[in-house]
C-alpha cells in the first residue's frame, strides 16, 4: 500500500482511487457499522411490511409524538404508557393513540377523517385483525398484543374512487 500523504504537486483530488483510498473507505464502513449499525430486525420488518397482499394507492406519512398531558404527569406509578401517532395521506388523516391496557397488551384508539364507516385492517406478525370506524370516524382495537402493527385504511362506504392507504409497520 502507498503512503497516506497525498503526492505533492498535482491536486490529490485528481489522483486515481488507489488501494489506500479503498482501505480508508473500508475502515469508515467498519466504524459506522460499529457506531450506528442498521437495526437488527429492520430488514425483516421491511420485508413483512412489503408482504401485504393488498394493492394500495398511498403510503401514509407517519409522525410520532408523545402526549404532552401524560408527559408531565408526576405520579409515575399511575402513568399509563401512551403514544400518539398521526398518519397523513392525500385521501385521509388519522390519529392513533396507543395505551397499555394490561400485561403485554395495548389498546388502540383511532380517529380517521374524513369521517365515515370504513374498515381498518391491522396486520401483525402472527395475527391479523379488522375493526370498523363508526360514523364519526372513530375506531377502537382493544386487547392487542404488543409488537409491531401495520394499518390498512379502506375507503368509506360512500367513497367511489377509494383506494387503500397503508402505513409503515410501527411498534405497539
Amino acid at each position, binding site marked *: *500500500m*502507498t*503512503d*497516506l*500523504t*497525498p503526492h505533492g504537486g498535482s*491536486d*490529490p*483530488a*485528481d*489522483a*486515481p*482511487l*488507489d488501494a*489506500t*483510498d*479503498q*482501505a*480508508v*473507505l*473500508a*475502515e*469508515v*464502513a*467498519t*466504524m*459506522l457499522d*460499529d*457506531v*450506528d449499525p*442498521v*437495526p437488527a430486525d*429492520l*430488514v425483516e*420488518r*421491511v*420485508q413483512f*411490511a*412489503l408482504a401485504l397482499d393488498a394493492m*394500495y*394507492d*398511498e*403510503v401514509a*406519512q*407517519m*409522525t*410520532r*409524538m*408523545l402526549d404532552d398531558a401524560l*408527559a408531565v404527569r408526576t405520579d*409515575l406509578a399511575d402513568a399509563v*404508557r401512551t403514544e400518539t401517532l398521526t398518519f397523513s395521506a392525500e385521501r385521509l388523516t388519522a390519529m392513533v393513540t396507543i395505551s397499555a391496557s394490561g400485561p403485554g397488551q395495548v389498546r388502540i384508539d383511532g380517529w380517521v377523517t374524513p369521517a365515515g364507516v370504513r374498515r381498518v385492517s391491522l396486520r401483525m406478525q402472527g395475527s391479523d385483525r379488522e375493526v370498523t370506524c363508526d360514523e364519526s370516524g372513530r375506531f377502537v382495537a382493544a386487547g392487542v398484543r404488543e409488537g409491531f402493527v401495520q394499518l390498512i385504511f379502506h375507503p368509506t362506504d360512500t367513497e367511489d374512487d377509494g383506494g387503500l392507504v*397503508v402505513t*409503515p*409497520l*410501527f*411498534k405497539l
Partner: protein
Amino acid sequence: MIAAHPEGGTLVGRATDAFTRYRAGERSALDELVETVTPLLWRTVRETGLDTSAAEDVVQTVWLSLLRKAETIRDPHSVVKWLIISARREAWRVSKRVRTDVVRTAAVFGVDAEETLDLPDQRESLPEETVFRDEQQRQLWHHVQELPARCRQLISVIAFADRPDYSLIAESLGMPVGSIGPTRGRCLAKLRGLLAGDPHWEGQLS
C-alpha cells in the same frame, strides 16, 4: 433464467438483477432487493440527521413507495438511484417536521427507565467511547465529522458500496459528476489529508 450476477456482483448490479426478477413475477426477489439496499438507505437517511426511530420509519416508507411505483421505473438499473433519491427526499421532509417532537420525546423517555427499555436502540449523535474498537477508530469518527456535511454524507454512503457503483451513488446523492471515481475526488482527498496529519493514522495504512 438470468445468470447469477450479470453485472459483476456489485451492489447496484445485484439490486438491478433482483428488481428485474421481481418485476418478472419472482416475489422472493423483492426480499433480496430489500436485504441488498437497506444498509445503503440506512446510511443515507441517518446522514440527514434523523434519529434511529425516525430513520427506520423513513426506510420503510421508501420501500412501501417503491412497491407501489415499481412499474414507473423504466430502467431497472436505476432502482438504487430511485431509492436513494426517495430516501433523501423523505428524510428531509420528515426531519423538518419532527425535529422538535423527537427531542421532546427523547427527553421524556430519558427519565423513565421502563420506557427506555421499550425503545429501539437510541444512540447519541456523539457515540459513547465504548462503541469504538480503538483509538484509531475514534479518531476516524472525529475526522469524518470534520468534513463538510456533503462530503461526510458522500463518504459514509459510498463506504458501503462497491467501487464500480461510486459514480452512480454520488450522482444519486446530488453530488457533481467526478466527485468520486475514477479519481479520488475532493471529499476523499480531504479525509486523506486529515488522516495524514493525525499521529494515530500516520503510517497505519502504509
